């Protein structure tokens, strides 16, 4: 039972990292990043190649930075042209990126399933007193929670975090108050892509790598964000842990129903609160 909870926590934390990136980009840019899953997948494959040649730790450091750079490019040469146009155009743009990335991954890495080897320190399992548990998953849990706590603290207490929240609420007024909105949004998109990249590398040794992994997790991440409420950061965090736990418990208790659990949770929440757990109606 404890092991199941831990499993749920590990998956939930992975969703947490991914969905906070998605929620961040949506909150400020008003973009639902359909490329989020593809970026996550790309990061996992690049992480595979980098950690094969150097080490896992090096991949964990560099790959998110690399993808954050890609985020800057996407913002500068794509999303920025679409400011003031229908938000659906931005969805379509990121959707186009998904197809390009899927093709790139299939061309360079093929279609068969792969895994990243965890570093030696994290390879075995740890005795927690009540159970032994794979060390790598513990690492994922700790790492993910730290990153999310850092993100929350950054948004809450720092000056740039304040700018990000302000520009998300009202672009024009923030600009008039002297915030460089373009720079802030470039930062946010880069950060969101970087978080997707981090999640991809973290997932490498834990889940298997396949060309379908991006879509699979994108759907779950969307469910997390819709359930949590678009336009909030805290809501998706709660929802991510909830769905992670529900998923893992259902896998044991009712295996045939497990695949439906996130969807059912989503339907229940939406029927009761169409704007999600912590969403604001006006945010859209």
């Amino acid at each position: 039972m404890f092991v199941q909870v831990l499993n749920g926590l590990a998956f939930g934390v992975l969703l947490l990292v991914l969905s906070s990136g998605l929620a961040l980009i949506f909150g400020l840019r008003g973009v639902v990043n359909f490329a989020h899953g593809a970026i996550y997948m790309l990061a996992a494959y690049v992480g595979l190649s980098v950690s094969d040649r150097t080490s896992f730790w090096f991949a964990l450091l560099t790959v998110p930075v690399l993808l954050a750079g890609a985020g800057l490019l996407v913002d500068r040469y794509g999303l920025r042209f679409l400011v003031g146009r229908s938000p659906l155009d931005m969805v379509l743009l990121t959707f186009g990126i998904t197809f390009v990335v899927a093709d790139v991954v299939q061309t360079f890495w093929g279609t068969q399933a792969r895994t990243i080897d965890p570093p030696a320190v994290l390879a075995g399992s740890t005795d927690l007193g009540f159970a032994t548990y794979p060390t790598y998953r513990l690492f994922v849990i700790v790492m993910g929670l730290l990153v999310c706590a850092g993100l929350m603290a950054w948004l809450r207490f720092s000056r740039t975090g304040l700018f990000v929240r302000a520009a998300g609420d009202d672009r024009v007024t923030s600009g008039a108050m002297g915030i460089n909105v373009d720079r802030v949004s470039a930062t946010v998109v880069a950060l969101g892509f970087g978080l997707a990249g981090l999640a991809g590398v973290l997932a490498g040794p834990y889940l298997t790598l396949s060309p379908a992994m991006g879509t699979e997790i994108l759907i779950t991440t969307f469910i997390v964000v819709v359930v949590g409420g678009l336009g909030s950061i805290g809501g998706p965090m709660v929802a991510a842990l909830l769905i992670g736990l529900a998923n893992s418990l259902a896998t044991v208790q009712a295996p045939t129903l497990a695949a439906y659990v996130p969807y059912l949770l989503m339907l229940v929440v939406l029927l009761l609160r169409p704007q999600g757990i912590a969403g604001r109606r006006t945010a859209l």
Partner: protein
Amino acid sequence: MSGTPTVADTLRRRNRTARWQALAWLVLAVAGLGAPWVISLYQLQLAQQAMVMGLLALSIGWLLRQTGQLSFGHAAFYGIAGYATSYVAQEADLPIGLTLLAGIACGTLAAFVVGLVTIRVPGIAFAMLTLAIGMLVWVAGGQLHSVTRGADGLNVSLDGTLLGKDVVMYGNPVEAWPLVWGVLMAVVAALWALSRTTWGRRLASIRDNEERMRFSGYATYWPRVVAFTVSGAVAGLAGTLNLVTTSFISLSALFWSTSGIALIVAVIGGVRSVLGPPLGAVLFVVLQNSLAGSGNHYQAVIGVVLIVVVLVAPGGCVELVERAAAAARRRLSRRPRKEAGMPVVPTPTPTPDRGGRRAAAR
């Protein structure tokens, strides 16, 4: 030609363009029937594929055009209609027409149920939600292996006589072409007419400002549910048509990329016009076919084309054609631009000539 154009002017002008559009469409519809005599059998097969995909793209494009809602879940209705048709054909001994109708009805019903839930969800969350529900149906399809046979797919043998021909004959593109083309053109006409009704205009108003419509006392929930259902019915029609012409369905019909590609096709073609999505489907099939030899990078190419279209011409190819036509017209006309830009419509103020004619008619 004095003063600003009145509302009556604008409406008359719009009706006149509409008449021209209707005529052009009629010519196209009739001319299209001649395709088997002009192009080779292989090309005809590709064209038929494009038309079925165009029908699915049309359903998504029309929804986007009319309600501003981006659906990633239409593969569900497409696939459900296909599977339902094959299931009814195997289990019940109905005439073929009823079998096909039952299949389409299942797709439509699914769209209605999905619409009831998703329409409540605001704006962009709708796109995410339809994607999630589409994948839910895909997961369910995978688990109902006894009905769907999973990724292996089902070979469906339909029997009976449809429109004076044995259904099996529709496996041949030459025989199937009039049916596929006719259905597509009929749906194009129906959707075009539907968007010109009061109801269609009201939908567009809800798209532009839902809150204002609600405060003006119009229902905004049900019209959109109905629009979603209509769109789902067209997707279901596409699914059943696909089954009739290929006699095969597999789980990939339900997969999200079916909706995704259809959406891309609709956007590339242009969703502002009803004919845009089928046009996009033709371009897609041509592109896919010409790239088939070169390592099959059509995914990347399609993605790049989509990105460029979104950035450069949000109205899709239809907009590009319109722009080119306008530029050509400007270059060709010797008249100064000021005059060329004026609306050439009769003013409502009675001129002596008009008054005289009206008097004579009485």
